[in-house]
């Protein structure tokens, strides 16, 4: 969680310094939820995070190097400069790389879960993460319904952070709470305050266990607030002070720290030390990646097919 935040902050700094090509998207304010998903998944599970899930990705097992290499466009990263920033994953490790089209990755998780069932691998779950804006897509609907029909162990986590880019939730849906959608799909619904780590851990644990034990798809609505712009290019001027001052506006990291202290799991020195450790870890990784080669277009094979012999070679001119 702290690592996620620190890494995000580093990317934001690099972005402002003009060292990142393209956008930077942060999970600020959403780390408690994100980490609660990622850390409670197991090897063999499937995970399809979205743009604000740096914390969950790391908790699921992504290395800081993979993240840094993708953001910095290193040729050595999992996407080799072909795709960037949040568009990364390792499908064979159950870590699904998002495409941008919102909602599209849920059905991919369904497919992986169906395949696992066909292969006799039981006791696994798949978590797909989306924002409340993505609940307006047809893809969301088709895939949640599909999971329900097939009774797949899907945990669909909706981070309702009140905004989709600048669009407030009131222009995105008209139901009282998104969790009201669950009965309409015949799936179990859960609600959670998304900036409360302890709650997130408990509710996600419940949902993940239920899915793992044959309870079918679980729909989790987490209520929270994005504590940053949509991307780092956006100052989020459209988020009102009222919103920021509300309980949702409290930083989940602060809340988690209080909870840790209160539970006696750690004291503030320990927490400070954690932060220092991860800062070093992140700095090291970035320093390393910055020395790595960028992709070389003349080494690139420009082949979109796995079946190389079927790739067309255009002897008519091509760049």
């Amino acid at each position, binding site marked *: 969680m702290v690592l996620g935040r620190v890494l995000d902050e580093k990317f934001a700094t690099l972005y402002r310094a003009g060292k990142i090509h393209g956008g930077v998207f942060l999970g600020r304010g959403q780390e408690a939820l994100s980490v609660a998903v990622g850390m409670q998944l197991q090897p063999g599970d499937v995970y399809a995070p979205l743009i604000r899930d740096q914390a969950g990705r790391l908790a699921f097992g992504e290395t800081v190097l993979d993240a840094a290499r993708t953001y910095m466009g290193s040729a050595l990263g999992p996407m080799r400069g072909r795709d960037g920033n949040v568009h990364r994953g390792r499908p064979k490790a159950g870590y699904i790389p998002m495409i941008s089209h919102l909602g599209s990755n849920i059905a991919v998780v369904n497919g992986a879960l169906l395949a696992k069932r*066909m292969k006799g691998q039981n006791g696994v779950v798949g978590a797909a993460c989306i924002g409340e804006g993505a609940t307006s897509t047809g893809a969301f609907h088709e895939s949640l319904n599909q999971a329900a029909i097939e009774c797949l162990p899907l945990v669909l986590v909706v981070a309702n952070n009140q905004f989709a880019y600048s669009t407030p939730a009131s222009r995105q849906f008209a139901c009282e709470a998104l969790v009201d959608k669950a009965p309409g799909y015949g799936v179990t619904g859960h609600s959670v305050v998304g900036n409360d780590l302890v709650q997130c851990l408990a509710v996600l644990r419940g949902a993940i266990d239920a899915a793992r034990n044959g309870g079918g798809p679980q729909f989790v609505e987490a209520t929270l607030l994005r504590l940053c712009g949509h991307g780092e290019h956006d100052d989020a001027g459209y988020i009102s002070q009222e919103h920021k001052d509300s309980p949702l506006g409290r930083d989940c990291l602060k809340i988690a720290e209080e909870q840790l202290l209160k539970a006696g799991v750690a004291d503030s020195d320990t927490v400070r030390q954690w932060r220092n450790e991860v800062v070093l870890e992140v700095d090291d990784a970035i320093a390393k990646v910055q020395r790595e080669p960028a992709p070389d277009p003349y080494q690139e094979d420009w082949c979109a097919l796995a*079946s190389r012999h079927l790739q067309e070679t255009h002897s*008519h001119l091509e760049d």
Partner: protein
Amino acid sequence: MSITYLEAIREAQARALADDPRVFIYGQDVGAFGGAFKATKNLANEYPGRVIDAPISEDAMIGMAVGAAVEGMRPIIEMQFADFSTVGFNQIVNQAATLHWRTRVSCPIVVRLPSGGTSGSGPFHSQSMEALYAQYPGLVVMTPATVEDAYSMLLEAVAIDDPVIFCEHKYLYYHLKADRLPTEALPTGKAAIARTGRDLSIVAYSAMVHEALAVAEELSGEGWEIEVVDLRSVKPLDTDTVMASVARTGRLLAVGESWPWGGVTAEVVARVASEGFNLLDAPPQRLNAKDTPIPYHPNLWTVHRPTARSIAAAARQLLRS
């Protein structure tokens, strides 16, 4: 024994299911019902749990296939009609087609598209979508014209490690018969010479191959020898075979059932013009459907798409030029 193009598709799927435990079929009404066209007749029975009825959710159907492919399966998705793939379009061109390039993980899915016009089917049950998919990188697009190819290419499609768009022609389903299933086939990406000739090359694919063959037969009565090239797959498109044919005949007529802007005929003519300009004794020509939605009424439909009649007229004109 006699086997139709449609039966060949069923047999290929039966064989794929039998030979490879990773194969499964997912589509609307493909289960107990055997599919809208009966292309999966009895398969649910013969391969329990591996022929699965899908909800009316084309986007999720394709997405599901991609996820299953990531896990090592080799799903075959049946679209009830090619036309409905427009609502699964995004998952095909952005999810399936980009996966390997982005991640090095291959995406061996087959999307079967019952394609093309039949009498009375109208604007939304008649479309030919091969050129749309061929434009996108990362896809293989097959357009079998014969019973033998329907069978062997579908088996190939399942074997290939990439997403294959399999454009099977509904008009050929029952019209086309062969004596037996093939035991060997040209490799994917190779066009076939459906008929040899020396005066004109007609390059076609899918149902149009048969219209072209009828024209070749008809014009042979007038002393012309027309070569018919069956592209078999439009991506990859076998430029070499096309070029070799044009080198023999000096004249090219590209025929496609789809609309006139872009499409296979544009690509064929453009390639030949660029790479085989000096082989041409006359301007290369194209014949396509008209630039309107596909009409319902048979009177309109038979004039909307190219037919032996209109191809013959174009061929005669080109032979005289």
